[in-house]
């Protein structure tokens, strides 16, 4: 087991390094001259030269990368051109919005998908199953940002129950913050749940065909117990994988939902930085989010190894 974990950690480090290379290449190498991107067309050649000097762009590209990575590892992601504050601090300041939004959406997703998927599996090829499948097909087809717009249309434009956006922060207690994240989390989580419903359903269906389920039923074990103890537990292994992968998707999705609901999170930070040609901020945010997704995938991989001993001996 220890060898398995060590090997996984080694591949994780290699993967994270590659993530940093990809971000670096796109921001610093592909444009040719990042100084010109930042200055735009109105910058004078002298000013561009000064900026190049300040950003260290005159050094060999490998040295630039090593330097950037060394600072990034210590949490120093450079300084925002637009706000003149460290990028790391900017990213951290937006997390209290993006993180709870992602987690709330994930919670809603799991709480909807598991019961619905289990229900569909127990009603296999009957009306309830077909109804659940139709609902999930529709859920997959509806883009989350459109769902968000429709929720705004219904709850704030028509009914006037909630404000159409903005974030009240956590200083006023838990509820005001949760309240301003509720609609975006619903739009994000409920519609992402559709994929998980299908995964849960097919996984439970697979397990229900197993011999041990038939044995349990033959012994006269109550159906609720068969489902809850024998079926669901074993069916959860692939479901955890799908849910984990979706957690990364939700984090990316929250970038879009922040725009719909005018929430000042990581996504809005990055979008604003693009308009302002604030390359260090774009670089910092994408490096952070991509690393988070890779880490989530790693955790899922590891959890899979723990839940299913067969994987480790591959």
């Amino acid at each position, binding site marked *: 087991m220890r060898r398995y974990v060590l090997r996984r950690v080694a591949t994780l480090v290699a*993967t994270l390094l590659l993530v940093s290379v990809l971000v670096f290449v796109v921001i610093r190498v592909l444009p040719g001259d990042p100084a010109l991107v930042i200055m735009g067309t109105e910058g004078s050649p002298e000013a561009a030269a000064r900026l190049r000097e300040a950003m260290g762009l005159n050094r060999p590209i490998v040295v630039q990368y090593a330097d950037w990575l060394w600072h990034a590892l210590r949490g120093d992601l450079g300084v925002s051109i637009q706000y003149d504050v460290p990028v790391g601090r900017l990213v951290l300041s937006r997390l209290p919005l993006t993180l709870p939004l992602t987690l709330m959406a994930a919670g809603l997703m799991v709480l909807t998908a598991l019961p619905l998927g289990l229900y569909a599996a127990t009603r296999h090829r009957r009306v309830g199953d077909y109804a659940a499948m139709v609902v999930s097909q529709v859920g997959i087809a509806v883009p989350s940002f459109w769902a968000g717009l429709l929720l705004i249309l219904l709850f704030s434009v028509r009914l006037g129950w909630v404000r159409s956006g903005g974030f009240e922060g956590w200083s006023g207690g838990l509820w005001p913050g949760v309240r301003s994240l509720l609609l975006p989390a619903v739009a994000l989580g409920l519609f992402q749940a559709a994929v998980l419903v299908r995964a849960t359903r097919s996984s439970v269906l697979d397990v229900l065909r197993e011999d041990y389920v038939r044995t349990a039923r033959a012994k006269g074990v109550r159906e609720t117990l068969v489902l809850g103890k024998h079926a669901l537990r074993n069916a959860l292994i692939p479901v955890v994988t799908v849910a984990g992968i979706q957690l990364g998707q939700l984090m990316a999705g929250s970038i879009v939902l922040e725009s719909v609901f005018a929430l000042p999170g990581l996504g809005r930070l990055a979008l604003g930085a693009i308009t302002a040609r604030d390359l260090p901020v774009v670089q910092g945010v994408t490096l952070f989010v991509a690393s988070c997704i890779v880490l989530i*995938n790693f955790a899922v991989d590891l959890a899979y190894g723990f839940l299913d001993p067969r994987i480790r001996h591959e």
Partner: protein
Amino acid sequence: MSRRQPLRHVTFALGVAITALLVLTAALSFVYTPKDPLAMSISGRLQGPSGDHPFGTDQYGRDVLSRVMRGAVTSIAVGVVAVGIGAGLGVLLGILSGYVGGWLDEGCMRLIDALQGFPAILSALLFAAVFAPGVVISMVAIGIAFVPAFARLTRAGFLELAPREFVVAARALGARDLRLITGHILPNTLPPLIIQATTSFPVAILAEAALAYLGLGTQPPHPSWGLMLKEAQNFLSLNPWFAVFPGGAIALTVLGLNLLGDGLRDLLDPKTA
């Protein structure tokens, strides 16, 4: 395996019908739209649905129905190119990984793991920061997000097929690597790749809409469903219908393509039926 599901034919037929409607709408929009999708009219701004404008008008008085029709072209184009990029790069990586093996395999796999950290939105953010946002960025960013899935499928196929008798026999007969790859192994890995391509297409359409909505993809005045929703958001209380129709077009298209993909999977892969 077991008896045919009664709804299977219905869903597949529905998928074919909706997809056909999408393609026909896009093709028709080249020769005919009810109004000029770019013609503005100051007096007819933000109208609800009417006989003259069945889907209403936008903030410049442009006919929403005509723009939704033309938007189908954008969606299809971005979808086709993005899936093409993802499949092309992915299959290439998968071949390097699965056929050559060794350290190259290890390297390719780590690259695939790393690419998995970049959903389309994240790559689009990166590209939009250094290049001008536009439809090309959408295509490339969405395509990159598809690379890992295609690469893994191809790799798995090559690992499974390379040691098989027909490949060994062809090699013994003097076939070179390129011939073995393109003539013998790759054709046999196609079914899962075709299924992957069909299921990726609706995902690409959703991603295009999201990127255009964020202002990273298709730019005005080109009609794109996502872009129309971005514009509609500013006028939710004045003309809510403006936000309804483009979104409905996205949902209907994705629904149809997903049903089609499910049906195709059943046809190509009887094991899951």
